[in-house]
């Protein structure tokens, strides 16, 4: 049944492509139905699943002569991310309700992207996973280049090329693994069982890991993320930050770390205090957390703040991966879900609620508009999303980041302390942007905008779809924050499966 998430998305994308051009309303309703159906399927599968059990959805030979199979399956990690994808897809469409320019193409590309993302999360054959991974690249380019804003063609091309370079690295690694194993198989389970020579893993692991991590915003390969997020239309920013960056992190976990666990192990020598790729990843992740937060602190553009905050929060996911213990890894997966929801919400407020109405994202300009009075709902949503993003207890971000930090303390006490400082900077930039964008009372700026009384009334009210989308996302973050077991009960047992055997065998330690 879970496979229908993919088929529904692609089929409706195809239908939308051939829909008459002058019916934007029909296009968005169809898109919403498709996304909701996908979400429904995902949610049903999620709640019906037995914790700890891997569900094989379909497993048939695809290219028999090369041993490639069409193998879709799901464990708790996949299910969590599929659920997130469904949630983000529905919310994204609710927040693109105002798109009328080439609407059918927009939603067609949007659903094609969603279909690719579902496919990645459900693939248990490395070749199939790669195919879906690349399918997700191209729609992003067009969505940003056609419907985007600031420097959209630059941002779109940068994003496409970064993704493609990353996937090129992954492809090299997969071909090498395929040939070296000599087993004529691309199945992740089979390859994970094959003991690749340590010398081979030493260079293939970083290749594949970084290839995927480029998309997860690993510092210093993160630069596509802020420009891409800023250039993208609202729904695309939500998806980019919400699920596409998770594709990268998921690939790191599912492919790089399970296939080449020895690549994480110590090199046997030290380079500036770093003794393994694991140390390198942890260090880069923490640099990403702190750097992203500090850069976000000084941005003048509202959306850039959120863009850099995504880099910062994705650093937690990568740090969680580097902990190599169950608590840290499950924290990483939880953080993927949490950041997917919260970043989606933040981008929705910035892109749809604020920018589409005020047509500016300059914080100094927004300061004079007193948006909290003009759009109390937007302000309220942003405050909630902001505190969730800071990691306030009660929201999903808190429990996820806490788990990552607990996990990291084992191996990297110093880095954990540095990360803690990063969290403080995160609180600072969130409060700063919240204050400037919504609760500005700078009298100079207020006088600067011609007649503040009128600007307040000129803004359209927040529409029903926007309210609905915001409520869904806030609810998701709250539910997971208050009752994390709803996800953790399914994530944690996944690490007991054969794929993660190396965790218990001390692999990579």
């Amino acid at each position, binding site marked *: 049944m879970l496979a229908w998430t993919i088929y529904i998305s692609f089929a409706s994308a195809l239908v939308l492509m051939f829909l008459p051009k002058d019916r934007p309303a029909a296009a968005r309703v169809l898109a919403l139905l498709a996304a909701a159906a996908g979400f429904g399927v995902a949610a049903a599968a999620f709640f019906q699943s037995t914790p700890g059990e891997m569900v094989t959805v379909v497993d048939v030979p695809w290219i028999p002569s*090369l041993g490639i199979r069409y193998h879709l399956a799901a464990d708790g990690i996949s299910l969590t991310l599929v659920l997130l994808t469904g949630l983000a897809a529905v919310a994204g469409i609710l927040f693109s309700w105002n798109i009328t320019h080439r609407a059918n193409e927009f939603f067609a590309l949007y659903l094609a992207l969603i279909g690719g993302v579902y496919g990645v999360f459900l693939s248990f054959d490395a070749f199939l996973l790669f195919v879906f991974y690349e*399918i997700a690249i191209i729609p992003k380019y067009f969505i940003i280049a056609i419907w985007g804003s600031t420097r959209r063609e630059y941002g779109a091309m940068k994003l496409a090329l970064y993704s*493609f370079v990353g996937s090129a690295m992954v492809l*090299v690694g997969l071909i090498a693994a395929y*040939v070296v194993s000599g087993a004529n198989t691309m199945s992740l389970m089979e390859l994970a069982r094959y003991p690749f020579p340590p010398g081979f893993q030493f260079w293939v692991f970083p290749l594949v890991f970084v290839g995927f991590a480029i998309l997860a915003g690993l510092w210093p390969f993160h630069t596509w993320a802020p420009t891409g997020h800023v250039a993208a239309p609202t729904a695309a920013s939500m998806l980019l930050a919400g699920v596409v960056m998770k594709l990268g992190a998921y690939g790191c976990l599912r492919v790089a770390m399970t296939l080449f666990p020895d690549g994480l192990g110590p090199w046997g020598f030290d380079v500036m205090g770093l003794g393994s790729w694991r140390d390198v990843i942890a260090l880069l992740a923490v640099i990403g957390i702190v750097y992203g937060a500090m850069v976000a602190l000084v941005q003048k553009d509202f959306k850039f703040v959120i863009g850099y905050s995504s880099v910062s929060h994705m650093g937690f996911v990568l740090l969680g991966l580097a902990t190599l213990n169950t608590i840290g890894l499950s924290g990483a997966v939880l953080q993927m879900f949490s950041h997917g929801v919260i970043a989606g919400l933040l981008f929705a407020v910035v892109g749809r609620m604020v920018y589409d109405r005020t047509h500016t994202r300059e914080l100094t300009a927004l300061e004079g508009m007193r948006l909290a009075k003009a759009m109390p709902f937007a302000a309220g949503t942003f405050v909630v999303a902001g505190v969730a993003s800071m990691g306030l207890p009660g929201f999903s971000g808190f429990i996820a980041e806490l788990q990552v930090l607990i996990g990291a303390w084992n191996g990297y006490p110093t880095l954990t302390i540095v990360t803690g400082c990063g969290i403080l900077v995160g609180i600072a930039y969130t409060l700063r942007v919240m204050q400037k964008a919504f609760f500005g009372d700078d009298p100079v700026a207020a006088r600067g905008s011609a007649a503040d009384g009128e600007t307040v009334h000129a803004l359209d009210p927040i529409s029903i779809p926007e309210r609905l989308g915001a409520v869904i996302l806030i609810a998701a973050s709250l539910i997971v924050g208050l009752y994390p077991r709803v996800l953790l009960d399914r994530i944690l047992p996944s690490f007991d499966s054969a794929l993660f055997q190396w965790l218990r065998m001390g692999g990579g330690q």
Partner: protein
Amino acid sequence: MSYLETLRLAVPETILVVAALSVLIADFTMRTSDARLRRVIGAMVGSVGCTAAVAWLLVMPAHAEVWQGMLVADPLTQLVKVGLLALTLLTLWVSVDSDFTAHVGEYFALILLATVGMMFLVSAEDILMIFVALELTSLSLYILTAFNKRDVKSAEAALKYFLFGGMAAAFMLFGLSLLYGLSGATNLKAIASALAGRALDPLLIVALVMVVIGFGFKVAAVPFHLWAPDAYEGAPIPSAAFIASGSKVASFFILAKVMMLGFAGVEGEGGWLEFRSGWVPTIALVAAVSMVLGNLAAIVQGNVRRLLAYSAIAHAGYALLGVLSNDGQGIGSLVYYTITYGLATLGAFGVVAVVGPRRGEALGAFAGLSRRAPLISMCMAVFMLSLAGIPPLAGFFGKFYVFAAVVNADMGLLWLVILAIAMSAVSLYYYLQVLKQIYVADEPADAPWLRVPVVIQVVLVLIALGVIVLGCLPSLLVGPLRHAVEAAGL
């Protein structure tokens, strides 16, 4: 060994020659009719010939060899011929709405004759036969390039193509004659066994290099590629499409055969920092520079046909990896790669044939095409993304298959695969430039009106479907190829 036997093996080629003559006669009887009608009749007669030949190949599988390898029929050559005929058939219909000549009959007859040359090329394992078939193909292609007599660019392109081609043929002939002198044989396998155990002496090196030059020209690999951009840009569009698709399939196939069979024993070593003279490092070098130069030069092209030409050079580099793997899987992957590449390029030229005559062939001429002609825009997107190697299109699996085959054959060649994959990341940039014009840019207000002929639209949709289906279900072609390679005993 009777002549009857030879004729039986050469039935498909004979059918095509008959079809070529029929086209000439049919066209001769309707000199005064409407030019488009004559083109449709020409394409129809040609299609009947191609279809009959394909039917014969599929219904009467042959596995025989006559005149010491002058003519070899085995499942693999038969499969390649079917691919060639399919590409020819599509080219015929792409030509129907291109109005550049009054000599319709001659045009179609030459396309068919060139195909005959390619088919003989595919089934030759004898250097004399290879050379003759190569010349039949090349001479037809030179004329096809020059066919637009009203256009000075067409003449220039043909002259360049001819001069370079003549020179390359001379090199190749020289190489082949040295090979004969060394071995006393003309059959590829006999040459290899006569040369067996012999060290790589200077004379053999000269022979090898000369042969590589000759074929390097045919497949447009750097540094023998200089003719390609001009020929692709100046030739009538269907001719360019044919040079880029069908002739590539045949040339690569025979190149692989000559190297694998004729130069068996002098492979050398192509691994990084482990070079040892032989044909593998020679071809590896040509492949590496083709990929790098083709892709980098394509980035700066403003003309879509020149862009396709440089992309062809780059793809020649990737396809050469299939030759390098030097085993059955390699040749299977090579055939898959060249056929799917031929389809995508043919389709891309088909789109240029629609847009070019009215709006020009600059990148900007495609601005806003997706809103004017959504269907062919979608087709173009499929072709460009397939060429860039985006799944689930055929171009992606082609690349994967070739790369996996070459690494499987020799792990030392991984450096070349890494280079190829890096370069294909570069290539996405310029393919996206074309799609950016089509989908993102807005149509200029003064853009001339555009008519999309129904025939070409149907052909393009068929090609696009072919690219998608072969990409989603590669087994349709990979399965038969594997069987054919095994049966052929390569």
